[in-house]
């Protein structure tokens, strides 16, 4: 089966910028898959989403979504995409129902179809009890749910969620994640960006780690977490001297990262690695191996990418 989204060698440099916002990025998203885009601020996530939707022009590369080429069939391509933007793209003085009816109307939905799609969106995000309330009076979490509902109205084949839980409390966040999980279980394809790594761990099938405009690592979540599990975290009694640092970098290369507490080392032979560290005269305070989290992997990849 062909990929639903195919991004090939896409690059983008903003006018006046010294570094590219995107640098030869290639990605695929399969039907029914949830792809998480993760990376620090300014990594290029929003630029990539903007290019996917034709909102930001790219310098090179190609984009195809559901068989539609971005350059030739932009209107058709937009019809198959639904965006829940970071900003709340609705009208605060209108009620929940009025906002839904408005966006359904401008999406060209009328009559029974409009009623059905509105009903689906309302039920999908559990907004039944708030339909007559002006959107300005909704809580932060409910606003985020309305934002999500609006992106579902025209039954998009692919849903782009740009930080959909930003600024909401834990309960609302849990609710929104459940809504997204429910949508995914119905086969909805999703591209999801977030700073909250635990969210990505919960709902994504696959992750793409992006930083400085480049895809640093891409793979199934289980594989990436397994990679994080191979990290040896060492707390040191005192920081290593320059000579010790040089010797360790020479020995372990990019697998070694120094942090505030000591160092992290990606290795399949932790015992041999510990011997090497002790041989360099380092005084080890704490030792931890396995049970790695996505955060560790992201930190290591980003640090390595930033190194000269």
């Amino acid at each position, binding site marked *: 089966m062909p990929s639903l989204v195919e991004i090939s060698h896409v690059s983008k440099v903003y006018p006046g910028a010294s570094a590219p916002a995107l640098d030869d990025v290639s990605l695929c998203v399969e039907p029914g898959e949830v792809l998480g885009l993760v990376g620090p601020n300014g990594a290029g996530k929003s630029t990539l989403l903007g290019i996917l*939707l*034709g*909102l930001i022009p790219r310098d090179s590369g190609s984009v195809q979504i559901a068989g539609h080429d971005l350059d030739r069939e932009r*209107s058709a391509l*937009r*019809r198959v*995409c639904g*965006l829940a*933007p*970071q*900003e*709340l*793209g*609705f*009208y605060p*003085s*209108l009620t929940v129902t*009025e906002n839904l*009816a*408005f*966006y*359904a*109307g*401008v*999406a*060209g*939905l*009328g009559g029974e179809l409009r009623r059905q799609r509105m009903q689906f969106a309302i039920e999908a995000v559990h907004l039944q009890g708030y339909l007559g309330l*002006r959107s300005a009076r909704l809580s932060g979490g409910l606003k985020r749910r309305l934002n999500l509902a*609006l*992106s579902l109205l*025209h039954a998009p084949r692919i849903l782009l969620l740009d930080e959909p839980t930003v600024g909401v409390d834990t309960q609302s966040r849990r609710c929104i994640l459940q809504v997204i999980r429910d949508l995914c279980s119905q086969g909805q394809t999703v591209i999801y960006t977030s700073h909250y790594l635990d969210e990505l761990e919960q709902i994504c099938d696959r992750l793409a780690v992006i930083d400085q405009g480049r895809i640093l690592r891409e793979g199934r979540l289980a594989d990436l977490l397994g990679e994080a599990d191979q990290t040896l975290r060492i707390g040191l009694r005192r920081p290593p001297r320059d000579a010790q640092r040089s010797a360790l970098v020479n020995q372990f290369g990019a697998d070694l990262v120094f942090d505030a507490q000591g160092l992290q080392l990606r290795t399949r032979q932790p015992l041999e690695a510990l011997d090497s560290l002790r041989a360099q005269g380092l005084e080890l305070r704490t030792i931890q191996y396995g049970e790695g989290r996505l955060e560790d992997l992201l930190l290591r990849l980003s640090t390595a990418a930033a190194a000269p």
Partner: protein
Amino acid sequence: MTMLFALVRKELLILARDGHGLAVLFLMPAVFILIMSLALRDAMDPSAPPPTDYIWVDQDGGPQAERLAEILAGRKNLGRSISSPRHGAVPAALAGGEAHFGVQLLPGLEQGISAPGTAQRPLAIVFVAPRVPPAVRELFIGEMRGALAVIRAEYVLADELGLSPADARLMQSQLHPDSIALRETLALAGPETAPPNATQQSVPAWIVFAMFFVVLPIATSVLTERETGSLQRLSLLNIGPARLLAAKVPAYYLVNLVQAGLMLLVGVVLVPRLGGQALSLGNSPLGLLMVASGLSFAAIGFALLVAVLARSIVQATTIGGIANLLLGAIGGIMVPKMVMPEIMQTASMASPMSWALEGAWDILLRGGTTLDVLPETLALCGFGGLCYGAASLLFKPEAR
């Protein structure tokens, strides 16, 4: 059609929900019209004396001086006379706003009247307050010269022709320009309704000015939609820029019509109850509606262009406000075109406010009909259409 209907309905709903905004849109122009009509009440009223109060300092004290004071007191163009014993106090009194003019009658008036050609010094000194307009100053000087000419004529009739003082006055009164009858009539396109008054003159100008301020809510609406991401979401639903902008026209056209209606209502009903002159709406309600519609389309088109060009709400409201002031200044809203130099009168033709004002005056002042206002209406609609077209071309709804 579903799409456009949804867009228009949304604009109407948002406007209807903004009670404070609507109150400002409707009440402020109405209050403005009320204030301006009352403030300018006397400016166009022929029965109201111009600002010509004067301080009278009689240093002559003779019968000719008394006669001169009597003549001046009888002139309807002059205000009240305030007698003062000291001429030195006149400049300070004028600077303090007690009067507009001062007349210091010098000793030796009779001698000066009897031999005007040999007089080496003036008969009187006229002091003029600095803020008195040139036309009023000319009027006062003319009245003074006229009164002195009457005294001189009476002297000649009595002294050189030997008439008794009573006969001399009678003869003089028959020779006075006031004794010659003239009929003054208004040049109207249609049947005469009522003579134009201050309300009639000023209300159209301020209606035109106020309606152009629709730039503020329209620009705020467009830029708020941009900031909240609504425009981006709409553009992702393939709503083109022309349609997005067109959807704003019906709602703000209604706003403009209600604004104009309220302002006219204030002129017709409220101003006369507060002591001003009532506004007469002329003989062509349809013509008035045509001008108001053309004006509204021009104002909305201009507002859309400003909204598209501006990068922020602050920028839009500043640009829109200043542009309105400039269009108003050029278009004869603040300064009547008839008092402008020729080059400025020509320049005023470039302002759509000038076209709208001419159209409104066609109906309200000149008794015109729909045919008379057709050129102005078409020009206003054309201006609005051009602005809308330019705005549609420049509008990038998806841009942040």
